[in-house]
């Protein structure tokens, strides 16, 4: 038995080493960092222990801007992408011909490099001296004024960021919802048809409750994912997000850690811990709500 014991631990050892070294230890360490005041990266010394790092971060206008951006992004993209994905999935499951083709197309954004395709979005939306760009051309067609979405007003930049974020997260949501819809027993729909249930009622009374666990799963993971937004913003606006006014919380963490404004792991840690607390709170609220709302 004890040799078996040893053998099992031997199999586990590589995974354990990696996890302890690169996940468990860092997790503890980041909390320690966040309370060490005046940490100096070069000499690895600090003055004392306290909450100064948190108060610095919470008073940093860049951080507040990042929090604002992130919240706007979350509040817009999570409902819009989930609703849109629901609509598309329902449409997708109601058709037979071409369904596979559509499914394949819809999944494409998942397997693309966020940074690379972000560049394409940038040139589609950007307005330079040479060209107004594709999207402005469309706007002009409908009689609108050209807007620079990349270096222009805040709402325009936010619009592109939300649009691109939704574009990137849709494949996952469509996929999850279509498989959830496919797993609903077709007998329910048959029974509803025999009873002459109107389409809308079938959707609200049968389909939605049946897939509600999956919808809540998507909302929760959607919130978590959207709060961690970063590379989408970099793809569109470049690495200096503070200058563009489009930084996100995660972006702020990395900027504090590294780059032109970097070298402050304590501030970065404090910001990361704040982010974690926000995400945790919202996830818990979500779970509580879903406990009440998901009915089976």
């Amino acid at each position: 038995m004890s040799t078996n014991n040893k053998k099992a631990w031997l199999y586990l050892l590589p995974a354990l080493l990696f996890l302890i070294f690169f996940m468990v230890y860092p997790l503890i360490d980041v909390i320690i960092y966040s309370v060490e005041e005046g940490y100096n990266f070069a000499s690895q010394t600090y003055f004392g222990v306290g909450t100064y790092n948190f108060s610095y971060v919470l008073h940093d206008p860049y951080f507040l801007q990042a929090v604002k951006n992130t919240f706007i992004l979350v509040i817009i993209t999570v409902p819009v992408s989930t609703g849109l994905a629901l609509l598309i999935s329902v449409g997708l499951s109601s058709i037979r011909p071409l369904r596979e083709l559509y499914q394949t197309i819809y999944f494409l954004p998942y397997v693309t490099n966020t940074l690379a395709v972000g560049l394409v979005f940038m040139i589609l939306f950007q307005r330079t001296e040479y060209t107004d760009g594709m999207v402005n051309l469309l706007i002009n067609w409908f009689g609108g004024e050209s807007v620079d979405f990349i270096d222009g007003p805040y709402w325009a930049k936010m619009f592109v960021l939300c649009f691109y974020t939704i574009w990137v997260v849709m494949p996952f949501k469509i996929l999850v919802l279509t498989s959830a819809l496919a797993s609903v027993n077709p007998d329910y729909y048959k029974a509803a048809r025999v009873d002459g249930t109107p389409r809308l009622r079938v959707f609200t009374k049968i389909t939605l409750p049946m897939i509600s666990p999956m919808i809540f799963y998507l909302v929760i993971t959607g919130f978590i994912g959207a709060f961690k937004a970063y590379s989408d913003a970099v793809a569109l606006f470049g690495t200096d997000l503070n200058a563009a006014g489009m930084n996100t919380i995660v972006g702020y963490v990395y900027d504090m850690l590294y780059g032109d404004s970097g070298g402050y792991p304590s501030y970065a840690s404090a910001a990361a811990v704040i982010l974690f607390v926000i995400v945790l709170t919202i996830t818990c609220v979500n779970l509580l709500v879903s406990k009440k709302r998901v009915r089976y």
Partner: protein
Amino acid sequence: MEADYEKIQKAAARRTALLRGLTYVGLSIWALIVLFPFYWMLLTSVKSYASYNAEYVPSFFTLHPTLQNYVDAFTAVPLGGYLMNTVIFAVITTLLMVVVSVLAAYAFARLEFRGKDLVFTLFLSLMMIPSELVVITNFVTITNLDLRNTFTGLILPSVTSVFYIYLLKENFEQVPDELYRAAKVDGTSDLKYLWKVMVPICRPTIITVTILKIIECWNSYVWPRLITDDPAYYLVSNGIQEIRENGFGRENIPAMMAAVVVISVPLIILFLVFRRKIMEGVARGGMKG
């Protein structure tokens, strides 16, 4: 009465047809939104520099496609090097991940040892830790170990994946116990049983996990950005960012698009080949990044 029913029936049929038509229109619009950026990047990548800049109003097609931009992408900036780095990074990371995860999953699924449940619960709780929290210390650790701008520094923290261990463990557990007992009776060692029986039976899942990890590696941006500032070690994500900010000069959009195409194509091919496996794996709960 008869005619009444007929009328209702006809109206219902009309509504169904209308709804179907609307569905197809809606689905096609979204397909267009998804595909258009891909089309645009291909189109722009074959427009010549001069003609692209001459278009104040962008045109939707080009009559004189050129491959010059692709030549530029590989000669003016070290795109080939970025690709090579990414391939090395993705292959080694994925290999290590698969080996480490298979061993751990096997221990959880098949071997009996004291504290197994406790360790597994701890394992699962690690799934909830966001990578943003641990990246900070890892950055400091790797810097202190003098491993910045090395493949070792890039790869090591990227190996761990609790989720894939979990996925593999679930799959391993579905292999019937009798096989293990039969193998024991025949005097098969655990390692041999894992290699000769478990792995072949669970190959579909292992392939799925491998592909998902490769995609993840190919697209990873944050960690490579933190840990490399020497372009000789850039991966494609950082490379494309570098190209954008300092590469061809900001204005050579067609060459930039050529680079984007080169970066995107391998994954799209991988996806089209393993479409079913990838979508199945992701549907089981894989999250991007």
